């Protein structure tokens, strides 16, 4: 747009500010659509449901999308259903625990967060996800194992 020049050759100040702000707004508004490299594939039913808020699934192998609140829901159900169980197979065989393990490494940051709150047998999900123990020392307690896992994960295990 060509602005009328005043006699001294400058555009009116208020017009410059208003048009500048308008352009910046237009740029900011358009930017995510222009620049985003993430294409929503609406033919994928998981993605369609996820963005429409209808998703019951919390994990998709293609997108890796995990909903934190859904993870918490699984964790809380697992905890309350197994809180008085005496044997590891009852605790790791719980359906909610299996769902958490099936998320693989996508679940690790959420598990780490739980372990940082307090030591928990959810640490066994890390054993299953990474298919290894953090310590082969028979004297390592579960609380110590939780601390060792947090340390290892913080170092980029």
């Amino acid at each position, binding site marked *: 747009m060509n602005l009328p020049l005043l006699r001294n050759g400058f555009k009116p100040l208020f017009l410059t500010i208003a048009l500048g702000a308008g352009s910046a707004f237009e740029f900011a508004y358009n930017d995510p659509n222009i620049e985003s490299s993430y294409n929503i594939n609406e033919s994928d039913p998981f993605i369609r449901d996820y963005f429409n808020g209808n998703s019951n699934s919390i994990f998709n192998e293609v997108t890796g999308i995990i909903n934190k609140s859904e993870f918490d829901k699984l964790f809380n159900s697992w905890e309350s259903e197994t809180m008085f169980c005496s044997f590891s197979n009852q605790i790791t065989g719980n359906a909610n625990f299996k769902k958490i393990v099936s998320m693989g490494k996508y679940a690790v940051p959420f598990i780490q967060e739980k372990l940082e709150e307090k030591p928990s047998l959810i640490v066994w999900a890390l054993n299953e996800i990474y298919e290894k123990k953090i310590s082969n020392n028979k004297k390592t307690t579960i609380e110590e*194992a939780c601390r060792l896992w947090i340390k290892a994960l913080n170092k980029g295990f």
Partner: protein
Amino acid sequence: MDQSIKQRILDQFPLLKDDLSFDVTSPATPNYNCISWAMKYSDRWTQYNSDSKMHDGIVYWWPDGVPQEPTIEAYKMAFQKIGYEGCGSPCHEDGFIKIALYENKGICSHASRELRNGLWTSKLGQNHDIQHSSPFTIEGQAYGRAVVFMKKKFE
């Protein structure tokens, strides 16, 4: 003690409501389970080797010659191997320590141990230790019934 913890335990073990000796006696810890606690260990999770997966902090302690299964008979044999013998009742006997094994849906679900003062103690899963007046007051949906009583001389 946080009253909500007591309430959660009472919800699961309603017979404890009338147990005047019921109390929560330790902070929650995942370090040991009820079998360890019945054996007086507090630094390990003790059980038969339930699967090939190895989890941190578990000692798959199981005596030789005892079937690797969660049946009440297998647990009875395991406690026999460490010096316990069967007895007919949980009633206090001077000079002896007693344990109770619980059965629920065909498997051994829990173990509790008598204290020197005649009260009983249980470790509840990955949670707290509790004190109760008899092995029967934690019977119910979670652990089923106390079906085997065993005793051993105090060491």
